């Protein structure tokens, strides 16, 4: 918001796009209030239904275009889960697919002008990251009992180093949900805020061509980032899941 003061005439509010507002007037945001969060999450659900349910309703052996995309998404996540966690991770594939498809659609919907990006909120990504963290930790202990603790005990390292490494591993383990969530929210927020800042500069005739070119470039980058961050979130989930299923390195 420093731009307000510096530019004087410019009114640049890059963070306003992230404000949670009730859909039907009023200012009160209760836990049940339908807000722009509700709207854009509902749109994400709608996109999921259109792509994965309506798009595949033909069940064609030779797929239509949209069915190809749905199959591509399925195959992409399926292969990722299989490659990273192994065959026994495949029964968690629907959960990872849910996370991936939600994030990827939220990210892309957020790129529409006037859109609200649900995944730019730490509350959203944090809940997902904590859910993954708790699920994986509980699953690790259920599957391996106390043997899950060996995930911290690097048997490949020299014996002297192992306690130190164990400490580092424990710390990094508990930092996982933080980095997991902030990576996604931070990427989405930063990109959108930067686009907004450049859009604010576009009202000045002198620099507007530069500003518009910059918006185009950053928008292209954001399209890439939207997909990559969804992919990163999903693949890290797979990695954590693998640790829970196979704690012995």
């Amino acid at each position, binding site marked *: 918001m420093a731009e307000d003061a510096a530019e004087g005439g410019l009114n640049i509010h890059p963070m*306003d796009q992230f*404000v*949670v507002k009730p859909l039907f007037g009023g200012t009160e*945001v209760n836990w049940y*209030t339908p807000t722009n969060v509700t709207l854009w999450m509902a749109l994400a659900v709608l996109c999921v239904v259109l792509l994965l349910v309506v798009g595949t309703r033909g*069940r064609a052996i030779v797929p239509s275009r949209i069915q190809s995309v749905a199959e591509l998404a399925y195959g992409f996540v399926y292969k990722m889960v299989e490659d990273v966690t192994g065959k026994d991770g495949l029964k968690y594939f629907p959960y990872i697919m849910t996370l991936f498809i939600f994030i990827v659609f939220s990210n892309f919907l957020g790129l529409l002008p006037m859109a609200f990006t649900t995944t730019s909120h*730490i*509350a959203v990504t944090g*809940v997902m990251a904590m859910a993954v963290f708790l699920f994986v930790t509980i699953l690790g202990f259920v599957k391996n009992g106390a043997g899950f603790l060996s995930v911290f005990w690097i048997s490949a390292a020299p014996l002297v180093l192992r306690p130190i490494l164990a400490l580092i591993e424990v710390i990094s383990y508990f930092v996982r949900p933080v980095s997991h969530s902030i990576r996604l929210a931070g990427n989405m927020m930063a990109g959108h805020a930067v686009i907004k800042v450049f859009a604010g500069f576009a009202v000045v005739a002198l620099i507007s061509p530069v500003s518009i070119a910059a918006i185009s470039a950053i928008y292209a980058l954001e399209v890439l980032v939207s997909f990559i961050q969804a992919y990163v979130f999903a693949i890290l989930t797979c990695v954590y899941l693998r640790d829970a299923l196979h704690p012995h390195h």
Partner: protein
Amino acid sequence: MATEETDTNGDGLADALGVDSHSAGEAVGMPQLDFSSFPNQIFWLVITLVVIYLILNRIALPRIASVLADRAGAISNDIAAAEDLRNKAVEAEAAYDKALVDARAEAQKIIADAKADIQKDLDVATSHAEAEIAAKTAESESRIAEIRDGAIDSVREVANDVAKEIVSVLGQKADANTIKAAVEQRIKS
């Protein structure tokens, strides 16, 4: 985006500096850290994720999995069928080749038979012709011999007559047998 209703100049700066003056809906430094909106977001997030999970798990994923399995099955079936057809084609080609070889052999046999038949006929005809020629030759020779004998007799007769005339012209009487003997002697020599 909708900046109008939050267009309160100066507030943003104050927020950025950490002055906690935002009422609900006002511009804040980082809406992400506005904890009053957290329950709302988490509530809708959980609902969204559960709905997506149910849609995926109940409808979308089984359907796509079955489509992919069907396709894999269809493809492997088609490949097997193609393999079958290819084997059949190879068999058919072998049968065709065999038939061709047989037909060639048959044709060779027929040609050889025909040649032999023709040769036989030819031989018969040749020997026939030769026999006929031999018979004709023999006949001709006998006729020539006859003619020659006839000619000699005629010559002898003429010689006798001529000799008798010559003798009678010379004024001597010659007996026919003497003349005949003399002519005979001359002809033989």
